[in-house]
């Protein structure tokens, strides 16, 4: 029914907003998958997830905007994209850095809380502390000013139906799809991926099967943080600027996507991201863009009223 309603609206919607929405959705999707994986396995809402995205963007900025130019490497753009080769080098480095950071935070803070049997709500609150501390740290190192990745091109593609997209959008979508596919392969084909799903299904049975929960948790952070870091870099490319609060503001659509799709379900997170991303962009046709997240939340509430477990959530 909802789908029919949305499809009915389509002729009245600017296609360029839909395209933009799909690009935004691919970024939301990357963040939301990590968020939902962490929830499924650790049972905690990682409120710092948005700030892991921010960290990813800034680390990439450090490599692409500061370190690599300082080493005297040629900036040079790639085809029509706004960014140059340095960003392609910076992205994997940023992923590694944020993953290491997430594992370290788990060791130092969350693991200690878990071992003391602290309530999961309090662990989530601890992640709020991590979020605020991390944002402060980012601001301390890089200042609160708006920063930009080096810009090499200003080309815009003109497509039929009055759609104008920057070539970067294609890059964002391709990277996002590749990472989602990689995540799917890890979860469905590798031993650790299956152990992660098993632990999310039934932690006690995973323990008595000999699955080391500690290692599962570690790899969950690695995957979740890697996806978040990528989402952060792509968001920096998408909105063409980097500010300390970018990830924190992104947390609302992330949670909306996770909840809409059904908490704990990676497929649900993807579906939720698509709906939230497109809704947010398309809503700007009628409402002030600063209310975008409100449109996403209204839609989420509507879906939950009809289907409380979300689109793909497990039956209670």
């Amino acid at each position, binding site marked *: 029914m909802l789908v029919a309603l949305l499809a009915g609206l389509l002729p009245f919607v600017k296609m360029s907003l839909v395209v933009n929405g799909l690009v935004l959705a691919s970024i939301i999707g990357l963040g939301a998958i990590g968020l939902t994986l962490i929830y499924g396995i650790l049972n905690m809402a990682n409120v710092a997830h948005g700030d892991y995205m921010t960290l990813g963007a800034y680390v990439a900025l450090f490599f692409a905007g500061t370190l690599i130019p300082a080493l005297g490497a040629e900036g040079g753009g790639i085809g029509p994209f706004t960014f140059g080769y340095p960003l392609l080098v910076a992205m994997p480095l940023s992923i590694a850095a944020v993953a290491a950071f997430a594992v370290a935070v788990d060791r130092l803070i969350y693991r200690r809380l878990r071992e003391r049997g602290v309530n999961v709500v309090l662990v989530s609150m601890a992640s709020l502390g991590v979020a605020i501390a991390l944002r402060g740290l980012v601001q301390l190192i890089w200042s609160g000013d708006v920063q930009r990745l080096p810009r090499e091109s200003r080309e815009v593609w003109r497509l039929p139906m009055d759609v104008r997209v920057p070539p970067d959008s294609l890059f964002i979508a391709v990277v996002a799809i590749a990472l989602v596919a990689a995540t799917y392969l890890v979860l469905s084909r590798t031993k650790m991926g*299956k152990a992660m799903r*098993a632990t999310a299904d039934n932690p*006690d*049975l995973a*323990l*008595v*099967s*000999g*699955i080391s929960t500690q290692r599962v948790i570690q790899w969950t952070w690695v995957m979740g943080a890697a996806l978040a870091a990528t989402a952060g870099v792509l968001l920096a490319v998408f909105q063409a600027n980097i500010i300390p609060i970018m990830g924190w503001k992104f947390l609302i659509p992330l949670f909306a996507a996770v909840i809409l799709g059904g908490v704990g379900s990676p497929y649900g997170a993807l579906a939720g991201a698509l709906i939230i991303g497109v809704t947010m962009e398309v809503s700007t046709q009628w409402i002030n863009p600063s209310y975008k997240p409100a449109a996403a939340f209204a839609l989420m509430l509507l879906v939950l009223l009809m289907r409380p477990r979300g689109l793909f959530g497990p039956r209670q």
Partner: protein
Amino acid sequence: MALLEASEVVAGYGETEVLHGVSVVVDEGEVVTIIGPNGCGKSTLMKAVVGLVRVRSGGVAFRGAPIEGLPPERIVRTGLCYVPQTNNVFPSLTIRENLEMGAFVREGDYRTRMDEMFALFPDLTRQPNRRAGSLSGGQRQMLAIARALMLDPVLLLLDEPSAGLAPAMVSTVFERIREVNRAGVAVLLVEQNAWEALRMSDRGYLLVAGESRLEAAGRELLDDPDVARLYLGGRAT
């Protein structure tokens, strides 16, 4: 030497103490059944042995070495595998993936063992890629036992394997358990279905209010008039 020796085990959850000093022994190749009324601590004893519930005092020795206080993922490596009463499969994983997870700590190739399990539990062979969550109660129980057997244990702990199954399925499950035992695996069983379980057991324990009341050969427990009257009720449990 006994295979498993739980002596004077005290355990519980939070403030509540459920087991007040329970002793149970399982010898190599035996089938031992623990019977007793609801809430007497049968399941807690199982969980204490496999490390899911902390042993507060007393000891658990397996093959002569103490295992109390070890984390579950270490205990399972010693050759002791456990099938919980409920939630005993990974519902979103396929049959094949469930078995693979059962073999998680197994070094090297587990495929031969998986084929053996498919031979032992033919109900699982037809759709190995079906999600465990969509299986019937009986199939699920078979899968749960097969998962626990993937590590080739010397002792299998089964918590109420017949609970909630249709009568025809109950005898199939018991028949499979007998086959597993004939292959040399000792079995420690907790059962509501006490008649059927005690008949195939070498020995039985009667657990009441967190204490072991009685230990006897399976047949003797069945024939004990008090036990029969108080704890076995009718056949229709």
